[in-house]
């Protein structure tokens, strides 16, 4: 994929990104684990025991895939948006821009860093969930590929947010007002079978709904949607967002004057 010097540059960006989020693990790795554990305890154990079954599974088992996916989405996104914006803010992004690093290597490095954090937190949350539910894997291939594609999509999304951000408010607006509602309405806690027909159609416009349900299919073997269609959507998102990121870097939006 990369020639020698580009591979070294790519490795350098990835190592720097991983070093960053592990150095500040109290801000990056611990909080999502605590938050998701609370979801397990409150929604899974306390409330879930009164709900009974959903989609043919115990409520705790039903929500575990969604909660893992929530951790992956939030952390992939926030790693790239906060890291790239903070480099813009400190102007240290100039170190990269003056060096002979092609745009696709810059993008790949940040995306790999975001995916690394998303997958790292996702793995920790998965291990934690084993204390609360008996998890099996229905399809390992689908489970792994949907996690990778989802973390890739949200890392790309975080990159676009960082490119346009001018201050720290700008990097929290999208996660707070767009991402969180989409995650909560994306079928993490319920099956869309429970919704009236109109809201069922509206839910299908939410991309996170496809990711959560495909991941749930990979683990439980049950889903509200067609898995092949979900993968097609995910691949389309990757292509469009990747193209958008490269176009923005080429134009120098947010980084060159």
């Amino acid at each position, binding site marked *: 994929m990369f020639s020698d*010097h580009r591979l070294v540059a790519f490795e350098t960006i990835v190592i720097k990104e991983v070093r960053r989020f592990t150095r500040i693990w109290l801000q990056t790795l611990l909080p999502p684990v605590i938050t998701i554990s609370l979801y397990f305890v409150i929604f899974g154990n306390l409330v879930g025991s009164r709900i009974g079954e959903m989609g043919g599974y115990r409520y705790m088992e039903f929500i575990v895939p969604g909660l893992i996916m929530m951790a992956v989405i939030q952390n992939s996104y926030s790693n790239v948006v906060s890291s790239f914006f903070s480099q813009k803010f400190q*102007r240290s992004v100039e170190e990269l821009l003056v060096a002979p690093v092609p745009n696709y290597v810059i993008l790949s490095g940040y995306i790999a860093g975001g995916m690394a954090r998303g997958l790292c937190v996702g793995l920790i949350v998965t291990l934690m969930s084993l204390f609360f539910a008996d998890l099996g894997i229905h399809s390992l291939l689908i489970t792994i590929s949907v996690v990778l594609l989802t973390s890739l999509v949200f890392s790309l999304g975080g990159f676009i947010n960082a490119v346009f951000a001018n201050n720290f408010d700008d990097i929290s607006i999208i996660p707070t007002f767009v991402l969180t509602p989409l995650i909560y309405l994306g079928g993490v806690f319920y099956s869309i079978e429970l919704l009236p027909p109109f809201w069922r159609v509206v839910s299908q416009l939410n991309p996170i709904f496809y990711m959560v349900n495909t991941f749930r299919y990979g683990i439980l073997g049950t889903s509200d949607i067609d898995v092949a269609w979900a993968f097609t959507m995910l691949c389309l998102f990757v292509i469009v967002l990747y193209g958008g990121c490269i176009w923005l870097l080429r134009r120098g939006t947010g980084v060159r*004057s």
Partner: protein
Amino acid sequence: MTVAISVSNLQKRYASGTMALKGISLEVEQGDFFALLGPNGAGKSTFIGIVSTLVTRSGGRVRVFGRDVDTHVYQTKLDLGVVPQEINFSQFEKVGDVVRTQAGYYGLPRKLAAGRSEKYLRQLGLWEKRNDRSRSLSGGMKRRMMIARALVHEPRLLILDEPTAGVDIELRRSMWNFLLEINRAGTTIILTTHYLEEAEQLCRNIAIIDEGRIIENTSMKKLLLELDTHAFILDSDATLDGEVNIDEPGLSLRKIDSHSIEAVLSGGRDINSAIAALDRLGIRIISMRNKANRLEQLFLSRLRGKGNGEVEG
């Protein structure tokens, strides 16, 4: 002689409409130590930004060692090292990591990157600080770290945008020695500075830029030869009671306080004539110093010649 950098008709209009560069053409030869001077807002940093690709240009061409920066991106960036005016490294990283990471961006394998960063951190007196967070460094150390970072891939052309701003005199002189050393070793250097003494001490050629245009582009020697006036402050050993006011062709003497006299010489008159004139008045001189840096006088005269006397020196 190979040309290290060549720009022709370089233009930059910012989104605000400000025309920062109005068609600059300039050549710097390989091995040169070149000064780019100008008042604040003249376009120096924009020029450096364009050459280092941090600023997109509105028109013109840039070639580095004969290669167009648009068509030979990799090689031209490899030939270039930039030390910007503003601090631009991650304040949370360790000093050694900042320099090694930069080496990685240039594709240097890990072992070579470690060796090079040690070499330049040692040369710039920062090796002992390699494990410190970069934000803990003093202002002068941060500047030196940025020089080490810019040199880690050993570029053929080094551009420094006011590298000694806010650095104390002792440190500034040690940085001058370091820069002269790497220039002697073959690195072409372009320097912008507000310290005109710095440009006079270090540089062989000079361009003065003002309001986005080059208003002077010549050798330092030639420029300084044009200066016909020298001003000195002479200190007397005794209190000067009466007035001192001599105004002869080529010599002007004026008391400025109870122990000091300003002497302005022109038309080939030397300092001996001033001392002799004071001796005739019974005034003994025990010390003297330049009133102002010679280049500073020239710089001001060039800008005033354009009707712009407001400069920051």
